[in-house]
């Protein structure tokens, strides 16, 4: 963190809170204010996000759609604090997270936000059960983990049961089908009981049947556990199952009704 960052944090905290645009009106879990992000190809600046203002209401499913290259994944990475915006703010509840210390963001990703990726991103050396337990291992030290080990394993098995994988817990990722791997990834995202699930093309690599399974799982989690789910997708049949849909166009978000999808695309 550079000096300027520190200064901003110290001087503008109060005004930040005052300026919080949706603070009073909507109970939103994640809010972005005027997000900008550019990539560089050599010296050429390629702006991807040009002022994204987005508010994610709690306990809803939100889809983000857009053409490929429109910045959907980039936005998701920013929301998940994997990347830092060039400009703008991201608020998790009433806490600003885009410029928080790295350690705090690591903790946030580890405990409050679950992430699911198109290519599952499981660790190939570990079994299903171990993959699911990784966030807990990261959270706890060696001794802490060993002390609560049986509790964690019981919880992991419970979640694997929930996603329908209890018969696969000792298998390696290369022994699983795509759908099973994605459900393992969902289980891993759930082990820390997050409030927010960010899914980047969760069905992008799956056939319709498996994709459907995954979507059903996500929806069930939203309904039963009250977890806010953000799904980035270009698949309209997936997008339209969300409570709310936004489209990324030219680096900005456009709110659309579920019915509009067919017309605009």
């Amino acid at each position, binding site marked *: 963190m550079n000096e300027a960052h520190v200064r901003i944090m110290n001087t503008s905290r109060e005004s930040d809170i005052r300026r919080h645009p949706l603070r009073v009106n909507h109970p939103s879990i994640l809010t972005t204010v005027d997000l900008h992000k550019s990539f560089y190809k050599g010296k050429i600046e390629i702006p991807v996000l040009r002022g994204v203002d987005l508010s994610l209401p709690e306990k809803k499913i939100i889809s983000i759609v857009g053409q490929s290259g429109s910045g959907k994944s980039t936005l998701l990475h920013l929301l998940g604090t*994997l*990347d830092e915006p060039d400009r703008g703010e991201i608020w998790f509840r009433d806490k600003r997270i885009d410029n928080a210390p790295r350690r705090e963001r690591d903790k946030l990703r580890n405990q409050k936000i679950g992430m699911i990726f198109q290519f599952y991103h499981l*660790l*190939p050396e570990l079994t299903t059960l171990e993959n699911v337990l990784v966030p807990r291992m990261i959270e706890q030290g060696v001794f802490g983990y*060993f002390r609560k080990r049986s509790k964690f394993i019981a919880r992991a098995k419970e979640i694997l049961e929930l996603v329908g994988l209890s018969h696969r817990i000792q298998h390696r990722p290369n022994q699983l089908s795509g759908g099973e791997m994605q459900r393992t990834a969902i289980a891993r995202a759930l082990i820390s009981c997050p409030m927010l699930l960010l899914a980047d093309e969760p069905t992008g690599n799956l056939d319709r049947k498996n994709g459907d399974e995954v979507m059903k799982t996500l929806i069930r989690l939203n309904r039963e556990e009250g977890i806010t789910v953000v799904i980035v997708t270009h698949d309209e049949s997936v997008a339209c199952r969300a409570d709310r849909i936004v489209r990324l166009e030219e680096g900005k978000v456009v709110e659309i009704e579920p019915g509009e999808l067919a017309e605009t695309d």
Partner: protein
Amino acid sequence: MYKLLLSWRYLRTRFIALASVVSVTLGVATLIVVNSVMAGFITEMHARLHGILSDVEIAAPGLGVIYHPEYHIHEIKQVLGDDLEQLTAVVRVPALMHFEVNGFPMTQQILLIGIDDQSFGQVTDFHPFLMNTNHRKKLSFELQADGYDESLGVCGWEHRRMIAAWNEEANLQYERLVQMNRQSAPVPQDLTGVIELPKLPQVIKTIDEFDEINASTAGAPPMRDAFDRHLPGPTIDQIFDARRDQHTGIVLGIAISSRKYKDPETGENMESFMIRPGDDVYITLPTAGANPNAVRENCTVVDFYSSKMHEYDSTFAFMPLSKMQRLRGMIQPETGMTSVSAIQIKLKPGTKLDVARDKLQARFPPFETGYVIQTWQDTQRPLLSAVNLELTILNILLFLIIAVAGFGILATFYMIVVEKTKDIGILKSLGAPSGGVMSIFLTYGLSLGTVGTGVGIVLGLLFVLYINDIATLLGYLSGREIFDPTIYYFDSIPTIVNPWMVVGVAIGAMLIAVLASVLPALRAARMHPVKALRYE
């Protein structure tokens, strides 16, 4: 926790990394073997070098002498005080030794050392290297009847009597030959019957035997009495009889008279002796002073000195100090004042040799007295420092081998980190801090280092344990003897395993393994999570 788990899994699934650790293993094993052998060699060598050398020595330069040793000893006691344990005076001079082997005369150059049989053994480690157990307990320059090492064969009084009997028999045969020669010679006719050849007398071995024979002749006075009463000069007991008497005792370095060889039939290492304890030799040595004369002394070999240092064993011969002083004229007839070549000093254990030497140098300044005052390490400095240099260079070279192994680990790790880029991204997206990701690879490096070092230690120690068997095996396979005891005077390769050396080598090797994994680990830690996730 994930760090340990993942390091463990990487260790089990990446065999190429284990291959890179083989060089660590070999390096560690080699270091342990080399250090153990060198330590064993150096310790053995120190013991042997120090064996005959006292802690500190004050010596007259060259063949010069120190006059009035009593005064010097008094002064040394004053200077060293409580540090002094014991001191002794010695006379040293090059000499020639003559002896016969199967009737052939031989001459050998030796360094004759006159020692005090009481104090010399207290100042140096002289006794343990003697080949006679009686002399090991208490040194005397007397031939022993028993107690000689079995490897010497028949020796001592038994050998001496055998040789004496043989000599007598040989003389007898010679006489007979002469007689037969005379008989067969063309003798003038007229002399026949004029000359009566004497009858060969009965072989009488000793005077006492003569008396025994004579005792049967009634009335005859014993020969002994006749000798004692009527003959001028020495009494009969003083007449030298090789069966009963010995000359001045001398202790020879074992390699002066022995040759090591390999039995062509059995292939065993044998030792043949040209002289054994009990044989007589002649020593020619110069008298002291500016105008030396050669004096000759008959000596009887009473023991061998075997320090296993070839340099010593092949040149040193020891004689009683007083005898040598008399022979060389080192006792002033008027005053009885003696002189010696050197005074050897033993210090109390724990005394700093260099400090004691410096004190003595201050008391006897070398540029005034000309004395050479040295510790035993000074005396052998060229050899000791050469061996130490050798050890240092070997260690540096071998650590370089481990360093090479370190670069192997570095390269392998770098590749593994690149291969695991996506995993690193995953871990970071799950909230693993950079430090945690870094420590996965550091732990990995440490585990590899530990495995390599552990196996290396076990291999190295096993090698040291069975080094002589391995040397034999290698000799058998290559057809050339690796360790030839005839050269080294060690029966087997000496080894000493210093635990601290092993610990040091282990720590060094593990450190190198960890250091080699730092760079790849840093790269892993610095990876941007999004870029890492997108890496294909």
